């Protein structure tokens, strides 16, 4: 029957195939095969052209640099030198020119050079329109942004023998010159913004000019071996693999710009009168150790947050109030936003994944706002020498039990029917949590009370008290929808498995990982189950 049924159904089968095959073809064509490159520059993309006749050109810059190097040419082959002898950041021009001229310039220069190379019998780039302006590009950009972290900064400090002036400068309007000012060093982006403004060129332009320029020809006072200065190719900085390969200095010395070690964060002087909330004791030194660069918290400037973020927002902060700047859940710059993402680390997630995201901690605002009231700010400021000077939250609650009473193991067997009771290594878990907390300054600061630790699992139970049994809240029979409270079995499994999954633990892989199967397992689970 199987074979014979094909014969009479040939007609319909043919119709089906007709449909399916033709629809299949379109899907195949969609699959793309492109090589990722980090050095692609999209030529024409930023041109304000109304109607681009052809797609913009994905220009592989490193490929051209390599060829230039091989031919012992230098950058000026493409980037002509300006009167100072520095290569122009633009292609074959010193000044911006009209759009139409620019199109002609690119076509003449690119095709011209490719043609010449080809005429000389060498391997050359394309000259046909569609080979540069590819509708289905050969490459896809894998370029990643790159910036200087404190490790790389330290390596530059060391290489230049603390000659900060090699990179840092400020603009002196009176004399119209760039001078170095000790103690006023800032981030490049402080002045060099996304786009060229007045006499300050765009960050992208100066970063490449300054970095690559110095890497190519380090100033004579900086002693570097020939070719040992930093990279010059696009991929060296912008490709993921290269970025990962950059040598790192663990725990580099602090960047000294005269910043304080411990701060009491408050509103700005002008806002201080209308501010009633306690200040926030803030260890700048510990955050420096934890952050990769100043820009993790600061934006372009290295000013205090309250300089721009006033209580009411204000123009300079684009309407972001000081409150939002500190508490935004979605921002990477804000205190709460950053702390929330820290909680997602495997060591923290076991407890914190179960808790509501961004919830107000039990200690309330005091968890962070543990400093003196604003009016005492001036007096107390000088007193702040270590984190111990201001502890967060309510005072420690005395434990109602002797810590030795904390059981070594806990047997969970209230529901055991199919399986033997599960034996939980209770104290081991506690020790593990304590160990993780000890590893982190932040965790130690916020979990300084012994009683807090228990609440990771024994949520809702009063601090300091010996926790009640799980089944005193979680009923065995059914969940409580109104209080969003799972039934006992669900509570156990969600809590245990949830924590194990959040912490990335591979065990248990099946049910018997926690509880052994009973010898005489009842045949019908349903009949022996609850109710």
């Amino acid at each position, binding site marked *: 029957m199987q074979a014979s049924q094909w014969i009479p159904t040939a007609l319909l089968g043919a119709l089906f195939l007709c449909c399916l095959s033709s629809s299949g073809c379109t899907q195949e064509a969609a699959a793309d095969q492109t090589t990722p490159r980090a050095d692609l520059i999209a030529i024409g993309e930023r041109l304000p052209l109304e109607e681009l006749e052809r797609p913009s050109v994905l220009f592989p810059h490193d490929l051209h640099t390599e060829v230039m190097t091989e031919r012992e040419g230098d950058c000026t082959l493409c980037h002509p030198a300006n009167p100072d002898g520095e290569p122009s950041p633009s292609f074959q021009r010193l000044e911006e020119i009209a759009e139409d001229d620019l199109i002609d310039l690119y076509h003449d220069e690119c095709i011209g050079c490719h043609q010449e190379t080809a005429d000389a019998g060498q391997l050359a780039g394309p000259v046909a329109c569609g080979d540069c302006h590819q509708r289905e590009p050969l490459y896809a950009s894998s370029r990643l942004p790159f910036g200087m972290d404190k490790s790389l900064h330290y390596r530059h400090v060391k290489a230049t023998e603390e000659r900060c002036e090699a990179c840092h400068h400020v603009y002196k309007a009176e004399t119209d010159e760039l001078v170095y000012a000790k103690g006023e060093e800032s981030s490049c982006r402080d002045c060099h913004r996304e786009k060229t403004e007045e006499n300050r060129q765009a960050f992208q332009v100066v970063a490449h000019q300054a970095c690559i320029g110095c890497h190519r020809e380090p100033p004579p006072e900086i002693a570097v071996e020939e070719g040992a200065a930093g990279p010059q190719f696009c991929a060296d900085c912008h490709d993921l693999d290269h970025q990962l390969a950059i040598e790192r200095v663990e725990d580099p010395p602090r960047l000294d710009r005269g910043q304080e070690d411990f701060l009491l964060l408050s509103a700005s002087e002008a806002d201080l009168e209308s501010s009633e909330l306690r200040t926030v004791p803030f260890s700048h030194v510990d955050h420096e150790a934890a952050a990769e660069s100043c820009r993790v918290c600061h934006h372009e400037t290295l000013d205090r947050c309250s300089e721009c973020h006033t209580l009411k927002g204000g123009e300079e902060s684009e309407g972001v109030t000081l409150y939002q700047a500190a508490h935004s859940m979605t921002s990477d710059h804000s205190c709460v936003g950053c702390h929330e993402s820290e909680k*997602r680390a495997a060591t923290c997630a076991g407890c914190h*994944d179960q808790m*509501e*995201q961004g*919830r107000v901690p039990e200690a309330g605002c005091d968890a962070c706002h543990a400093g003196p009231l604003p009016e005492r700010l001036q007096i107390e400021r000088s007193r702040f020498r270590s984190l111990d000077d201001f502890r967060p939250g309510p005072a420690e609650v005395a434990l109602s039990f002797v810590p030795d009473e904390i059981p070594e193991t806990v047997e969970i067997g209230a529901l055991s029917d199919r399986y033997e009771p599960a034996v939980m290594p209770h104290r081991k878990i506690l020790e593990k949590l304590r160990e993780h907390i000890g590893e982190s300054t932040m965790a130690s600061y916020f979990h300084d009370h012994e009683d807090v630790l228990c609440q990771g699992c024994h949520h809702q139970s009063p601090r300091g008290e010996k926790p009640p049994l799980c089944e005193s809240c979680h009923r065995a029979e*059914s*969940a409580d*929808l*109104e209080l*969003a409270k*799972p*039934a006992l*079995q*669900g*509570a156990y*499994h*969600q809590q245990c*498995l*949830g924590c194990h999954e959040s912490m990335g633990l591979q065990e248990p892989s099946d*049910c018997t990982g926690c509880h052994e199967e009973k010898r005489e397992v009842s045949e*019908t*689970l*349903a009949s022996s*189950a*609850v*109710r």
Partner: protein
Amino acid sequence: MSISRRRFLKSMTAFGVAMTVPKAGGAYGSFASHPDSCGVLHDITLCIGCRLCEKACNEVNDLPAPERPFDDESVLEKRRRSDDKSFTVVNRYQVDSRPGSPIFRKLQCNHCREPACASSCFVAAYAKTPEGAVVYDPSVCVGCRYCMIACPFDVPAYEYDEALEPKIMKCTLCHPRLLEGKLPGCVEACPQESLLFGRREDLIAVARERIHRHPDRYVDHIYGEHEVGGTNWLYISGVPFEEVGFRTDLGTTPAPKLTSGALSVVPVIAGVWPALLGGIYLMTRTKEKTSAREKATAVREAIDATQAAADEARKKAAEKAKADQEKAVQAAVKKALDQAAKESAKEGS
């Protein structure tokens, strides 16, 4: 829509036909479902793929034993659907955004608030119970399988191997157990409480709460809250629903609404067509009759005219004949007289 319906209902009341009037304010398509309508919330993030729900379902519904036992994980390698021998199945999905950690999802009847199967059934074998279950009555089922065509979730399954008494098989939300005050079999068996039974409204609140508390863990959507008019099974997920086998293109139109428009034309056609066709017939016939009458008149006139012409001709001919005759008579008389005169003259001589 609502105005026309109100007017329509008013007219129905006038006829004395309408005995039930929906509660005020119920716009077309948004009826308040039974206040205690229950359902199940399936939190996909909690499901560990143990298939105890499948096992429990099999047992409480007295379904035949599966080919491979319920703890055989190789079953999960294939994408399955519910059929006539299993009301529920758990599928495993590998999602690109979470490599290495499979996601499990249980499939069964979603117990729509506006069930497509009920809307499509021409013997009303399906019913939505006040408890929220969509139940099926095999005692009236003809076996047309239109419900299988209609169901957007491909749930109803048919006993193709039954010769004379085939039934549709599908999850009942354990309606008999609900009436006994028990939980649905699968819910009771779920060790993770990935399945949560309760009033639909409460479940939506729970789902909202979970999404609100863990915005990073969940996709901000409760599948089934509005899909095809809402279902009593609800789902929350950590990955986009289409990645774990859900149809996200079903829209929110309840199934009965898809056909109610076309069906509402039926009485109109039944009302207007006979009158229209009758009218056309009468017009054609009147036209025929008129043309027949005109034809008859024309014929008569033609006949009359011909008759008249013929009469005239006959008359003329007659007159002529008469004249000719007279002439002939006169001529004959004259001739006779002449001859007589001749003969008398001859005899006289």
